[in-house]
Structure formats: C-alpha cells, structure tokens
C-alpha cells in the first residue's frame, strides 16, 4: 500500500514536470501577455519595458528555472489577469468545477445504470433500440449546441431555469463557497450539469450495456439461472455488481477526465470554474495560469486514477492493491 502510494506520488511528480516543460516550450506561441495588459495605443517601448520587467525576455532556461524553483515550494507563479498566485486562482475556481462535475456525475449514475441495465436485459425491445439510437445522437451533438439548446428551451422559452453563473452561494470553509445548499444555487446547477453529462451519459449507457451483456453471458450467471434464482436477483444483485466493477475503473477515470471536459460547458454557462478560467487564460495569454492549470489537471488525472484503483481494490475481493506482481 505504501509502495503503491509512493509510486503514484512519483508518477504525479513526473507527469507534472513533463507537462510544465511542454507548457513552457509552447507558451511563447500562445500570444503576448503584455499585449493583453495594455491598451492598443500603448507604444512598443512601453511594452518592451513591461516585458523586461516581467522577465519575459530572459532565456528559456532562466525562465523555466525560476518556475521550477517556485514550483517546488508550491508557487506556480502569478496570474497576470487575476493578479494573484496561480495556485490561489485555481483553488478558488476548483469548487465550482467540482460541483459541476458532481452534478453531472449524479445525472450519469442515475440514468446510465437503469438504462444500461435495461438495454442489456432486453436487447431486442424497441425501447433499447431507441436508447441506443439516442445515445449515438447524444455523443455526436457538440456540447456547445446542447448547452445553447437547453438554455433556449428551459431559460428563454419556458423560463424555468437560470442560464448563467452559479447563483446564490454559501461559504463553507475558507475560500470554498458552494451553491449546493441554496435553492437558487441548485437551480443554476441543473442546466450546466445536464450539458456536461450529455457527452458521458451515452458513453456510460453503452459501457454498462456492453459490460452487463458480457456478464449475462458468463458462466456464473448461467450457473445462477441453473440454481433456480429469481431473475430480478440475478439481474440487479449478481450481474449488476459484476458489471459495475469494470465500469468503475473505466468510469472513474472518465469522471476524472470530466474535470478537463468542463471547458466548453463552463464557457457556455459562464460557470466560474477552472475550465472557463482556462479558456479565458488562453484568450488573454495568461501564460502562468495556463501552465498552472495544465499541471494541476495532470495532478487530478493521477489522483483520480489512484482513487479508482483504491476503490476497485476495495470492491473486488480478488485484487490486492499492493500489486506489483
């Protein structure tokens, strides 16, 4: 267990190091941050002076060395736009993104499991064909369009739900503010969550369906039928548990990647999370923030993978997380 966690920690460090190196290599092609700080009529000399002051004229090695030196102390630099440390900015945007991912995850779980299971046990029914067809459509419609469509229907025409932002927030702890405990906050969460889940939900339905189909064809399920068990017990207790095992691995990682998929959804709904922040940072050439975000997302990927492995080991009695055969 300790070896496992140490290995993962090392992996995280390596991933973050490589990402930062790539980020630094490409940062100059992302635009000129100085241009974004000054008005258009400001002279070239003024801009040059500012560039010099920010250390943007230093050689690559010097700039990267400065970054690494800060990074080992947890300092990823200063965002040009927010005028705050990159880590502070990211952490302040994290709750919004996590809540959005949480909302989308709930939707995915509540819909994908019953629908996926239904499709597996009734492969020939018209409803299954409809669900599978609809899921293809769901995958192929861009998130952006889904968002605008929902916004138009539920916001503009029906006027049920708010179309942008997080609504009323309550401070939970430190900079952590949540919209999960206010009605207004929850109402604001609905459309973005549906939009974010629109891509993953069909994938999960298909995943659960195919895993469940496989499980239903397995020997132990056949044995369960031969034992004279009730069909509901076979489907929902035995087969479902076996189905969820691979789904958790694949799905868990997917949900981790959803943190990165929030970019479009957050942009459409003006959701003040990390994804939107990242897109804005790109538009503003806020390079420290761009690199910081990429490094952070790398870390999240490693963390989710680790969590998924831990959960898997916890559920599957045959796996010892200690691993390392």
């Amino acid at each position: 267990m300790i070896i496992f966690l140490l290995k993962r920690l090392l992996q995280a460090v390596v991933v973050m190091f490589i990402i930062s190196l790539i980020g630094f290599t490409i940062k100059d092609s992302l635009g000129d941050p100085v241009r974004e700080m000054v008005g258009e009529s400001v002279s070239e000399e003024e801009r040059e002076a500012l560039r010099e002051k920010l250390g943007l004229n230093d050689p690559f090695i010097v700039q990267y060395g400065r970054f690494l030196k800060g990074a080992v102390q947890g300092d990823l630099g200063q965002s040009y736009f927010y005028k705050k440390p990159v880590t502070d900015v990211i952490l302040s945007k994290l709750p919004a993104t996590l809540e959005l991912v949480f909302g989308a995850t709930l939707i995915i779980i509540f819909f994908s499991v019953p629908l996926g299971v239904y499709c597996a046990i009734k492969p020939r029914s018209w409803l299954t064909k409809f669900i599978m067809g609809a899921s293809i459509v769901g995958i192929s419609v861009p998130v952006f369009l889904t968002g605008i469509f929902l916004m138009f229907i539920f916001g503009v025409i029906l006027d049920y739900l708010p179309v942008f932002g997080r609504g009323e927030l309550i401070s939970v702890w430190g900079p952590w503010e949540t919209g999960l405990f206010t009605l207004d906050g929850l109402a604001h969460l609905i459309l973005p969550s549906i939009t974010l889940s629109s891509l993953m939900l069909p994938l999960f339905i298909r995943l659960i369906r195919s895993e469940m189909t496989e499980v239903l064809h397995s020997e132990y399920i056949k044995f369960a039928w031969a034992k004279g068990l009730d069909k509901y017990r076979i489907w929902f207790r035995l087969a479902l548990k076996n189905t969820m095992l691979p789904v958790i691995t694949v799905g868990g990682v997917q949900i981790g990647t959803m943190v990165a998929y929030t970019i479009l959804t957050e942009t459409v709904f003006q959701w003040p999370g990390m994804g939107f922040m990242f897109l804005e940072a790109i538009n503003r050439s806020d390079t420290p923030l761009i690199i910081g975000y990429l490094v952070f997302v790398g870390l999240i990927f490693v963390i989710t993978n680790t969590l998924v492995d831990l959960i898997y080991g916890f559920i599957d009695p045959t796996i010892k997380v200690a691993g390392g055969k």
Partner: protein
Amino acid sequence: MALLEVNNLKIEFPSRHGVAVAVEDVSFEVNPGEILGLVGESGAGKSTIGNAIIDLLSPPGRVAGGDVFLKGEKISSLPASRIRQIRGAEIGFIFQDPMTSLNPLFTVEEQLMETILANLDVTQESAKQKALNMLEQVGIPEPEIRIKQYPHQFSGGMRQRVGIAIALSADPALIIADEPTTALDVSIQDQILQLIRSLCKKRQVGCILVTHDMGVIANITDRVAVMYQGNLVESGTTEQILQRPEHPYTKSLISAVPRADVKLKRFPLVNYIEKASVGFSQIDVSNHWLGQTSASDVSSVAKGEDLLRVEHVNLRFITKNALLAKNRRYIQASDDVSFTVKKGETFGLVGESGSGKSTIARVIAGIYPPESGRIFFADQEISAMSERERRPIRRQIQMVFQNPYSSMNPRMRVQDIIAEPIYFHKLAGSRKEVEMIVGDLLDHVGLGRRAGIKFPHEFSGGQRQRISIARALATRPQLLICDEPTSALDVSVQAQILNLLKDLQDELGLTMLFISHDLPVIRQMCDRVSVMRYGKILEQNETEALFISPQHDYTKNLLALIPHMDHLSREGLMVQQG
C-alpha cells in the same frame, strides 16, 4: 418409472443463414442413483442437451421437437416461472470450469445460501446450517472458516467441490454435470469424480455426466450414450460400450484415447470423421528453404548431443509486495532445476498445474530471466546474453502454446501472421519467396495454402494450433517448446496434431521440449521425461523406464491416478490403426 425421460429431442439454432440442427431425435432415460455418461467430441451436441433439459439454451437455440419428463411430469415447454422452480430444486447443475462458474464477488456462503433460500422453504438460520453441512459433505476442511471466503481463495479442485455443494444444496433429484473435471489436474479429477459418484449413490440422485473423456466414462458411469454430430449413435451399459462397441464412431473414439500402458508409433486417428483433414504434403527438406541454414544460426550440434542444458535454475515470484524485503512473500516457481535436452529428441516435462513446468519453459525462451542458474543452447550460455545477442538464438527456440488464439492478432491474415517472423529475422530475400514459403508451410501443416487469406477466427481450435505450429516453423527453429499444445482439443484433433509434430520432428530433425499434464500423451510423445512438483524436478528417466518402474512416490501416485480403462479392451480395435 425413470427419473428423467428424454424422448425424440430436437434442438435447433435458427440464424440468418438458415436453421442449424444441433441435436436430432435423441432419446434416453436416467434412473435414480444412476450415472449416465453422455460422451462425444465438441460440437456433438451433448452440452446442448443438458442445457435444453433445464431450458437454458443460449439464444437463439430452441427445442424444436420431443419431450422431457421428470418424475413423469412433462417439463419441456413449461412457463418460465415453473421451470425456475425446477432448476436448483429438482435439477442441479455442475459446470465445467469452477474458475468461471462461481461469482468472484460473492462469498461461498452467499452463493450457497441464495440457492437454498430460493428453492427451499427454510429459515435463514437453517439455510446457514445446511450450507455449512453441504460444504462438509463435499469434503472441504474447516468449513466454518472457508464458507466466509471468496472463490478466488480456493484451489481449482476445492472450487469444484463448492460447485457440487451448490448444485446439491437444494436436494435435487437429478444433477447434470457438464465436463466437471476437464479443467482440473489429474490427481484432483479422480477425487471429484469419486465424490460425485458417492454422493449420487448415497442420496439416490440421478446424474447426467457430460464429457469428452473416455477415461472419465470408464471411471464412474453406469451407462453411456455416445453422441456424434447431434445424433445419439449408440447407448448401453458402460461395460458394454467400452468392451463391445458396435458403432464405428464409438470404436474409433475409444481407440484414439492415448494409451498410458504401451507406446505406439503413431496416434490412432478417429477415422470415422467424414471430413477427414487434408493429408499433409511431404517436403523435400534437403532442397527446401526449411532445410537451409542461415548465417545467424548457432553452430549446429550433432544428433544425440546436448542441444539445451539447464543448470540449477531458480526463480521466485513475489506474491505479496512490501517496502521491506523481509515482509515480502514469494513462491518458488523454479527450484534448482537442471536437465539436458539432446539434439533430435523429445524431452517431456510432466506435472500438475503450478508445478513450474511452464515457468521453466518461459525461462528457456527468455521471457523470464532466471534469478540464478545457467542455460546453455548449443554450448552458448544464453542466460548471460544481452537482449541483442539473444536475438538469433531466440529465433531458433520457438514456443507453441495451449491456446494459440490469444497469441494471434485477430486483425491479421494467417499468411501475414506466419510471414511476420520471416520478415523480422530477414530469413528470406524477396517477397515472392516469402509467399512461397508461407504457402509451403500451410500445406505442410495440413491446412492448404489457400488458408492463408483467412483470419484466425475463421478456424477451429485444432486448425489454429496448426497455424501456430506453422508460425513456429517459419523461423526454422532447432528447438520447439510445446506447452500443453493439445490440452484444449478433442481427442481426434489431438491425435492429428501430435502426429503432425512427430512427423515434423522426423523430417526436420527438430528437438522438442514437450510440456503436458497428460501422462498418456507424454508416454506416446517423449523419449525422456522429468516429473515436476512445486518447482522441483522429482524424477527424471527414459520415458519407458519411468512408466514401467517409477521411483518417486509422487510419480507412482500420478500413474495410479490415470483413469482406468479396465473395461476397455482394445483388442480388435488395433486393426483399424493399420
């Protein structure tokens, strides 16, 4: 009145290409306490009958005709709710592979209890008691502890005992055992068969035992029904069928069983098979590419001298990792293993699963590095070579696995699969030459060169094994390591493959390391043999000497456990081998 009566059963599998008839006009009966053996090769329809009786045919299979009566009540075409009451409660089922038939995520207790509670009207408490009782009856030690464990914590044999316990837990009148011992080691096989037999007799439970193994039939059945391509060709008492078979298929099936008692030159073929395989074409090796040597070949060794020397090889696997070395747990997979293989001979490694025989094969092939010890191939120490230096040697040592399908890229055509190593080791000049070699190889293993354009999934298990042999030959190896090459195959196909290997050896002067758990096969194939257990070699001798006068107790025990074919008289059958 018979316990189970099957009359004129017909089973079909409709598909887009028409209706395939899997079983046609099959009738038999089973009496209480009687064990009926249903024997035949794969595709004979024997398992389909078992599934049809409890209405568990996999879709789109359906019973197209005939009736099934249980205790006089017609149980074919019953509504789903009624047939469910029969499953488990009236008819228990034992599956082939205890590894896959138990749900890995539930404890043995949960799996036993759910069966009891679903079928019997008992309290939770008494169900628990009964579950414990069942485990005890099937001979699981310390049942109180074991019952709380998960299937993966049991060995294969123990798991099958659990399977039997579950099948019997709701006191059925009939059990259907579908190849219950095929996946088990020889020593366990016998125990399980005896367990089934004793339980059936004690409880007066009828049993249908589906198997492809004549040895099993001979061992425990009372009566036998022989299936061939969906038809029941012959039935009678076990003694009658084994000693006086009437149908030609039965005769040839019996004769094809590898014999443990005497070594024959070739394996008798099941010559009743209508679509006999293409005879393999001879190649004039001295003039053919296969007979040539390439610059990278290791200097050849004269026939009868040591080609391979394995000296004091040790290898451990970590079973529990830990930061501190003292907390780690290992399993000793190879324990001071030494042997030599002479040029041109077939050297056998025999032992049960987990004995380390496959591990040593992988060490020789360079898949695992040994922890200590040395391996010489044609007097070069290959265990000390770098990956680069090893490459020409690796080419000359090829492996044939039990399940060739998993080692073939399903998206590649057979001709490309075989050509790959020729290109990789640059063994032929032009593309045209390679195509010709591949064609010759396919001819040679009896598939015909036209097979090259097909994909692996279009072939049966035996044909795939031929492909993998062709692929192994494509590097012109000196040493062929065969790891259980026929364990997954039917007797008739096994005979073909093993004969092919023998022929190839004669023709190409191949040296073989032959690994098997099957003693009769070892006796027929090998010149010398080593017996392994727990990573150690216990005994090593000329094959004939070892079979006639085994020295080690374990060897004696193994030989004693070979299913007795006492009933079997092969006289009169020998004629057919020609």
